Every structure is written in structure tokens, then in C-alpha cells.
């Protein structure tokens, strides 16, 4: 009897506790409030989204957006002080570190697609990029058809190499695909003539060309392997309260004049550390997305009206 009563008490207590909790914060917001800190995951070489400057400090377009999100979180939680910590991530570690709570936001150049949504959530799209190829001007390659029978590099495990493989099979081009471990290495393959072309996100190609020894020697194709795909800032799945705050913060930023200003700062002006200028004006699709922010993974939904 005594035993049963105890059980009843415990269940009752648990029930009360659960009810009390539901009024309070949950998930990431709760964690941020308790620890007084938010951790941002950054990439070390995703220029100009998220990379290290010459003082080994993470900077970039996505980092600036994340700092705006941090301000919004701070305001939402009515905190006087919110410490921002930075933690480096790679394409292999970003999911585990986000899942186990080491990082709260992943600020880089991660493509938002339907498969990935099973594992994580994305906030409003901050960039759109299509898969294109870069080649030396001297090799005179204009279209995808020109790559027939040649050696072409791409980074293993990316959506780019997947699209290249698909195009290769669908159009029976007989391309010899060389998988590289990293984006920089894919470009290195073209620089050292191991491959005639490298297939990557066009914005990454622009940054590699701008950073190469002789930027005039390379040309980025107009022919694309894919529709423009969205980049998003990644957060934990099933955390609606946090996502609401982040979505509102990014939407407010993109819709204000600051969104365009921020874009110009990273894509139209010289950026540290080497003073590169990517010279990539905002596209019609992205402009439209900024006026109507969306977190959709579907490339078709980003058509400029």
C-alpha cells in the first residue's frame, strides 16, 4: 500500500513538473538562457560565407547574419549579456556537433535540401547558387557538351559531384570524373592541369578564381548543371521556438535595407584578408527571396516573378 502511494506521489509530482515546464522555455532557447552563451559553428574556408581572416577570427556573410540572429535571441530572452562562442566545423562534423548541442547555429554554405531536412532544420535562405564549371580560358570550353571525354574534377560527397555524375550518365558524355577531398583541391586539379574543369557551386568558383594567381586565365561556364539551390543557416530539428526567433530575425534582416547592404559588403566590395572582390551582383531570384524570405528546400520555389 505504502509503495503504491509513493508511486502515485511520484507520478503526480512528475505531472506537475511537466505542466510547469511547458510554460517555460524549451530546447535551444532554454539552453542559451541557462548558460548565457550561444555557440556558432563556422567553416574555415567557405569564402565569403564563413572563413578565417588573418587574425584567425571567423568572418563572412553568414557569420554576419548569425550575429544578427544572436542580437535577436538576446532581445527575445531579455538578456543583458550573451556570450558568443565560435566552434569550427567541417562537412563531416557539422551534423554531429549540431545534434549533440556543441553548436547552436551552423553558419556557412550548407545547401538546404529535402533529404537533409529529415535530420536538421534550416532558416530562411541566404544565398542561391547553381552548379557550374570553371576551366582555363586556353582550353576553350563553353558548354557542358564540350567536356565530353575529358577529365573533370569535383568535390566528393557534394551535390555537385552528384549532378555531374547524373549529367554524365544522362547525356552519355564519357567524362572521367576525378573526386577531390575538398573544394580547394578540386580547383587545384584545374590549376595543375590534372583536370580540364572543376564542377562546383558557382559562388565558390568565383572565390577561387578571384584568389588564384592569375584570375584572368579562368572562365566560369554559363551552362549550369542545376537550378539555383538555396543555402541556409542550419539549426536543430524539432525546436520550433528557437526556429521562430531565428526565422523572424533573418526575415527582418533580409527585408530591410541592411540585407542588400550586407550582400554588397561581401560580394561587391573588397573583402579581407587578401582584398579580393568577388564582383557578383545579387541575382533576380535572390533579390526576390530577400523581399519574401523562404526556407523552402525546393529550387523551383525561388523563381523570380
Amino acid at each position, binding site marked *: 500500500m505504502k509503495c503504491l502511494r509513493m508511486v502515485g506521489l511520484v507520478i503526480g509530482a512528475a505531472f506537475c513538473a511537466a505542466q510547469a515546464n511547458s510554460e517555460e522555455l524549451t530546447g535551444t532557447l532554454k539552453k542559451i538562457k541557462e548558460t548565457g552563451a550561444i555557440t556558432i559553428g563556422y567553416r574555415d574556408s567557405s569564402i565569403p560565407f564563413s572563413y578565417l581572416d588573418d587574425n584567425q577570427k571567423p568572418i563572412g556573410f553568414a557569420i554576419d547574419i548569425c550575429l544578427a540572429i544572436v542580437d535577436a535571441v538576446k532581445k527575445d530572452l531579455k538578456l543583458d549579456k550573451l556570450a558568443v562562442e565560435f566552434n569550427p566545423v567541417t562537412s563531416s562534423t557539422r551534423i554531429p556537433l549540431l545534434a549533440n548541442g556543441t553548436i547552436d547555429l551552423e553558419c556557412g554554405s550548407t545547401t538546404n535540401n529535402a533529404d537533409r531536412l529529415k535530420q536538421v532544420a534550416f532558416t530562411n535562405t541566404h544565398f542561391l547558387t547553381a552548379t557550374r564549371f570553371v576551366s582555363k580560358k586556353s582550353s576553350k570550353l563553353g558548354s557542358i557538351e564540350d567536356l565530353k571525354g575529358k577529365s573533370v574534377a569535383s568535390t566528393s*560527397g557534394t551535390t555537385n559531384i552528384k549532378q555531374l555524375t547524373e549529367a554524365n550518365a544522362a547525356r552519355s558524355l564519357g567524362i572521367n570524373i576525378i573526386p577531390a577531398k575538398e573544394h580547394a583541391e578540386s580547383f587545384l586539379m584545374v590549376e595543375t592541369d590534372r583536370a580540364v574543369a572543376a564542377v562546383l557551386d558557382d559562388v565558390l568558383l568565383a572565390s577561387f578564381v578571384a584568389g588564384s594567381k592569375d584570375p584572368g586565365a579562368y572562365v566560369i561556364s554559363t551552362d549550369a548543371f542545376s537550378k539555383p539551390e538555396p543555402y541556409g543557416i542550419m539549426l536543430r530539428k524539432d525546436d520550433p521556438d528557437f526556429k521562430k526567433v531565428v526565422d523572424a530575425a533573418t526575415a527582418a534582416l533580409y527585408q530591410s535595407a541592411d540585407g542588400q547592404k550586407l550582400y554588397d559588403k561581401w560580394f561587391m566590395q573588397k573583402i579581407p584578408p587578401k582584398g579580393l572582390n568577388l564582383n557578383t551582383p545579387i541575382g533576380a531570384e535572390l533579390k526576390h527571396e530577400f523581399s519574401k524570405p523562404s526556407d523552402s528546400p525546393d529550387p523551383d520555389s525561388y523563381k523570380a516573378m
Partner: protein
Amino acid sequence: MNYHWNWSIFFEPAPNGTGTYLDMLLSGLLLTIETSLCAWIIALVFGAVVGVMRTLPSKAASRIGFAYVEFFRNMPLLVQLFIWFFVLPEIVPQDWGLWLKQMPHAPFYTAVIGIGLFMSARVAEQTRAGVNSLPRGQKMAATALGLTTAQTYRYVLLPMAFRIIMPPLTSEFLSTIKNTSVAITIGLIELTGEARAMQEFSFQVFEAFTGATVLYLLINIVVVVAMRFLERSIAIPGYITGK
């Protein structure tokens, strides 16, 4: 942890259109096995030759062997692979360099040679240790019988030495298999490479690397069992490693 486990991911079709994710890992496993077998053959041949050189009476041979071992043993494998893959084609004449760069399956050959030579330095040390572990009397007896140096090694020293170093050689073979994962840095998409690709496509990181771990474990167990079997079948009753 906020993670969506999905173990059935292995049976879902992979986006590269060659079957399921499991097929992807298995094709990586096949490449890992091919690379490590070829590298192991190079390691054994070069290692045995260099190891024997280090025990020869000739001073010059022993010095060459010493230089070889220290060169390949004291540089990280990753650096060696980079030198073979990125630096070598730039320092040879341009025509050769271009030929090297445009050779099909260049990462495979580079990995086989790079890992093979790296491991050969270690096999050489094992061989030397094996030969040196034999009682001096063996060599003297062979000389007294009128055998030449070559015959002494062929009929007296090496048959015993190799039996003695069988267990450490098993470890070196296992290391060779595991070292092939470094070749991912020069674009060889072996087991680790496929696991990385799988996690990038599916975002199921833990499942992908667990799968790769299990496969590595399995081939290494197969190697260990096979080597044990080999050890037992070549053992000489009454001598060091025999019963």
C-alpha cells in the same frame, strides 16, 4: 542528443544511381581491399630486400638500407602521398608531368606506391630484426658448409627469420589496410571516402561511419584469422615459433 536515427538508410537508394547506400560502402570496401593488397605486395618485396641489405656484411648496402628506412619512416604518410601526387609531377619534365597527371586512376596508383613504400620501411625493420634475432652460429655454420652469402640467406637465415616475424608482419598488414584511408586526401574514394560521401548525401553521419567501422573490423578479422592459419601451417615443430 537531437539526432534522427535511421539504420535502414543502408538499404535506401543512393543518389549516385549505382544502387543502395550499402552498395556504395561495399564498392569502397572493394577499393580498400585492392589498394591494400597491392600496397602490401610492394611493402613486402621492397621491405624484404631493404631489410636484408641492412644485415649484409657490405657497409655500402647497409648504409643505403639505413637511408631508405629513415627516409620513408620519418615522414608522415600524408606528406608522402602529397609529395607523390602533387609535387612529383611538377618537378619532372613537363611532358612527363602532364602524362602523370592525366593518367587514369592516378590516385589509385599513387596510393598503392605511396603506402607500399611507407610500409616497406617498417617491413624492412621487421626483417632486419628477424635476421638479427637468429643465433650467430647459424650464419657461421652456413659459411663453414661452403654456402655463399646469397645461399646462406636463401636456405638458412630467411626461412627462419620470416617465420619469427610472422606475428609483427600481421600487424603491419593490418596497418596497411587502415592506412589506405589516408588516400582519401588524394581523391581515392575508398571505404572512408564512401562513408563521407554517404553522410554528405544522407546526413546520417553516425550510421555511415558505423557501417565503415564494422567493415574495417570485418576485413581485419579475416586477415588476422588467415595469418594465424598461415603461421600455424608453416611452423616447424621444435623450433622457436613451432610447438
